[in-house]
């Protein structure tokens, strides 16, 4: 007989609310009349996210394993869940924007219509707006929240798929350049499936090694057995492949630039920020809770991967002329810096990485939000040339973008500097000083392409008849403003949030 575990409803509420709202959203799609769907979905989405955040605040301070030990409710889990919800909120603001494109929002009116077909033209003419994105979005958010809290390999895998599958679909839904978008979705799906296979195989091997799938059990097995068996090493390696794919670490990063460029920009923002937070949450929990005992084995791997990641991200970023792709490489480089924080394997490292994720996530959403504003007739103009002289023609847009770039580059008085400083000092304290030196060099290289954009915006003549900045509605302004506020406030006055991350930096075992 299967023993049904006790369910701690309150501790689970943040995740459950989002998932239930997503499920209701699916029903709404089936039963509600077409015109009523969008308002209902928006209410559902924002209501669920805000309620979820409220419950995170309520259960903050919990420190226990729930649902028979397969899920953890603890400081890091809740901090990162909160980060994910905030990222999702800002992304949702971008997704609901419909003032920018002359035809509606950023999504194809009907995903099923062939690109360029008569159907598509009609749907566009009728001004249909896609509403299925909302339940997909919520389920993905729920998956992310589970991902950072999963405490056994099975739930970890389920969460991975839950967050990924909706994203594969969302990535293919861009209203403009649909073929590129669909290609991106296809690539993301294929490679994602490929990496999931590695992940699953790794999980199976770890189960073979430990005889259990819970993280705590694996840790016990490692400390108990003393000697490292090939099963453990192969299992860890393959598990890493799956996780590192999600954070776009080199050499599992190739998908990122293509997918980021092809996806609808609000989804890119959500992916770049949310997936990164979720996947790093999972990596942190796996490395700290499950395989911390084998640190001597996996640390060199992560060191080398981290080094490769920030160097490839920074160096290839130099050659990009498309801002979306440039931000993709920037996110790869940041994955490298974050991995550095993971390898610190200390409370300082954990707190630093979480702080970094928060600041990076929110400013990334803001930066992608700004990318949606500069447009031509046929959609967003993301080539570097389109942003010439923006400092003169649109000082606010240019100033906000420059702020985000400064933050990405890690220039003081922005949140990015504090995050980078915290991560680097934690890594240096853990004995990876040589890698920190390399990371600083890589940041210097990356700073070059960030600052190049600033130079283009402020020191080149505006092109007379180029792309225009479209005035967005309040929702995009909220998303960008939120990013700006966080970037500035956490850059100048980071202590409260640093303290919060520090308090939250103990995993439940």
């Amino acid at each position, binding site marked *: 007989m299967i023993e049904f575990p006790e369910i701690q409803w309150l501790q689970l509420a943040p995740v459950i609310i989002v998932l239930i709202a997503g499920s209701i959203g699916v029903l709404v799609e089936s039963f509600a009349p077409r015109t009523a769907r969008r308002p209902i979905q928006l209410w559902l989405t924002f209501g669920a996210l805000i309620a979820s955040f409220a419950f995170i605040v309520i259960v903050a301070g919990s420190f226990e394993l729930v649902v028979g030990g397969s899920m953890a409710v603890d400081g890091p889990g809740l901090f990162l869940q909160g980060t994910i919800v905030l990222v999702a909120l800002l992304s949702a603001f971008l997704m609901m924007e419909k003032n920018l494109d002359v035809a509606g929002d950023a999504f194809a009116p009907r995903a099923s219509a062939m690109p360029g077909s008569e159907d598509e033209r009609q749907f566009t003419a009728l001004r249909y707006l896609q509403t299925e994105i909302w339940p997909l979005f919520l389920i993905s958010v729920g998956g992310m929240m589970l991902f950072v809290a999963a405490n056994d390999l099975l739930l970890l895998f389920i969460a991975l798929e839950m967050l990924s599958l909706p994203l594969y679909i969302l990535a293919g839904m861009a209203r403009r350049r649909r073929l590129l978008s669909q290609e991106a979705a296809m690539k993301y799906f*294929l*490679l994602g499936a490929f990496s999931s296979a590695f992940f699953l195989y790794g999980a199976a091997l770890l189960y073979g090694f430990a005889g259990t799938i819970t993280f705590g059990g694996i840790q016990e097995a490692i400390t108990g057995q003393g000697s490292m068996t090939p099963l453990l090493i192969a299992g860890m*390696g393959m598990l890493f*492949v799956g996780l590192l794919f999600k954070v776009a670490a080199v*050499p599992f990063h*190739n998908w990122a630039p293509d997918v980021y460029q092809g996806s609808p920009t609000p989804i890119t923002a959500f992916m770049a920020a949310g997936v990164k937070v979720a996947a790093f949450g999972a990596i942190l929990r796996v490395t700290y809770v499950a395989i911390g005992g084998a640190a001597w084995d996996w640390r*060199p791997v992560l060191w080398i991967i981290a080094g490769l990641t920030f160097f490839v991200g920074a*160096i290839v970023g130099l*050659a990009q002329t498309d801002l979306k792709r440039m931000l993709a490489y920037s996110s790869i480089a940041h994955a490298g810096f974050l991995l550095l924080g993971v390898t610190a394997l200390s409370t300082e490292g954990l707190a630093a990485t979480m702080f970094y994720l928060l600041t990076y996530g929110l400013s990334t959403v803001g930066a992608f939000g700004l990318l949606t504003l500069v447009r031509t007739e046929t959609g967003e103009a993301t080539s570097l040339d389109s942003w010439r002289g923006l400092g003169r023609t649109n000082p606010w847009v240019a100033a906000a973008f420059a702020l985000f770039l400064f933050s990405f580059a890690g220039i003081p008085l922005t949140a990015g500097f504090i995050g980078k400083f915290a991560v680097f000092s934690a890594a240096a304290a853990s004995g990876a000083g040589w890698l920190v030196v390399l990371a600083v060099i890589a940041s210097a290289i990356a700073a070059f392409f960030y600052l190049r954009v600033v130079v283009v915006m402020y020191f080149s003549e505006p092109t007379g008849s180029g792309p225009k900045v479209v005035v967005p509605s309040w929702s995009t302004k909220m998303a960008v403003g939120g990013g700006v506020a966080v970037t500035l406030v956490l850059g100048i006055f980071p202590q409260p949030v640093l303290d919060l991350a520090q308090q939250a930096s103990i995993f439940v075992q």
Partner: protein
Amino acid sequence: MISLASTILSTSDEEPAVEPITAVVSAAEAGGLFEWFWLLIAFPVFGMLVLLIGGRRTNAWGHLLGTAVVLVPFGIGVALLIDMMGRAEDQRSVVLHMWDWTIAGNFTADMALRLDPLSMVFVLLITGVGSLIHIYSIGYMSHDPDRRKFFGFLNLFIAAMLLLVLANNYLLLYVGWEGVGLASYLLVGFWQYKNSAAVAAKKAFVMNRVGDVGLSLGIMLMFVTFGSVAFEEVFAAAGEADGTVVTLIGLALLLAATGKSAQYPLQAWLLDAMEGPTPVSALIHAATMVTAGVYLIVRSNALFDLAPIALNVVLVVGVVTMVAGAVIGCANDDLKKSLAGSTMSQIGYMFTAAGLGPAGYVFAIFHLLMHGMFKADLFLSAGSVMHNMNDQLNMRRFGALRTVMIVTTGTFFAGFLGITGVPPFDSFFSKDDIIKSALSQNWLAGIATIFAAGLTAFYMTRQLSMTFFGKKRWTQDVKPKESPPVMTVPMIFLSAGALFGGLTMVYLFNLQEWLTPITGFTPGELPIPDWAVEVITIATLAIGVTLAWRQYATRDVPETPPVNVTPLTVAARKSLYADAINEGLFMRPGQHLTRFLVWFDNRGVDGIVRGTASGVSGLSNRLKLLQNGYARSYALTMVVGVLVIAAIFIVSRWV
């Protein structure tokens, strides 16, 4: 937001003196008005912000606001003075702690202000003379389209100077110090479309930077030595510190002071700074800026008393500048530049006094206060002349202006009486004190002060007669008339100060007693009787006046400077070759150095940078090829990645 916790410092002053008197902390609440003295700074800051941020919208009333935010602090200052005079002597120093200002690690400096008898004197001088200059500027700048901006800068100047004299630690003082430097740069270069003004502003700025390096070095040394930059803590700890270090700190502070106060060797900017509008010259010369160096030295008296070498250097600098400035003043045909030479010389008097140690600090401040009044009066009168002579300044083209500008003649004459030291006007008291004190400590310095007094009489008489007496030598186009009351009224007020300030300070107020708790005072012993000194001084003055009067009032003054003159005159006309020396010793070698550095930067540093950059971008383009868009090759990369991970695991296992 600002927590206003106040503390009174008690000063013990009874010992008659060899040891410097230093403040000892005793906590007590400062009630009433003293909780609010930060408003002294807040008002001009507010004015500056409104005028500079408000922009053109404030053009209509900006000058009035700008004047009001200096007048109000003057009112507050007077009220504070009355309050302070009512207090017991040991209750007069008040510290207002506003907030902690942590700069880095354990390097903290409190955001704390200090009001004591010394800063009180400065507050009144700055706001009082400053107010009159503001009022005068309303008229003087009435035709300038940027008058509002001018008032914004003036307010910045006043605010920075007040911060400088009210700071309770050296770091905050440094903030004010730099603020003064910035404001002077903005104001000297106010007519920046004139090349000469822009160059002069730059020169003032650069030379002040040299001095500022001294101040920052001094502050760093203090922090390293004493672990603090607060006045009391530094002064209290100075006694136990290594004498060499204290001497070094003293010399660093002196370097700073020579920059701000235009003393040798950093004096050359002052003459050029005359390019600014005349109210600025008055402000720089009388109430602010140049007095900052004297303030710094007198404020740091506890340090200088322990560093006799540094103190002697102060004396030497003072004496040299006092004489050299007077010589420059004697030969310059430009009215304002002649007055600028005079400022150097008078500040030199103050440095001389300060260099005498406890015997002279009080007199340095006394003369500073007197100078603030008569020099402001002289400058504003000169500005009035200039305003009505189409901005000409060549005294050889003035003459006989008394016939058309009776008020200005009167006020200038008042300034003349004040500066030369004719009894019983300002300098008669302050300069005599310095002369006596110098004679008692160092006869050479004493003789120099008497000689400089004679020179002062000479160049002032020369200015007076060339400008207001003699025959008309005007250019064709000028039609001088008297200035409007908005300009003449402040001049009259200042004249009163120039005439009766000394009397007031000696017989009504007793400045010496007022300042002694802060600066300490040791009266010197004169080798000859008092009356003899006075007789000698007055005789010297008479000689100076007579020589100049005969030369410039009774004989005709040629409209072009005569050529066959003594080498000394030639040198004096060229400001004693200051610019040539600066250029030869510093500017040209500096230019060669920068040229070399530029060359090295282009070839060496940039070479490496460019090489690296092109290397990296080459790598970037090659790596980009891996991003070919095919999912299959991406999958292949991943497989390679798996192999790499496996390899690392294996290698790290067996290595």
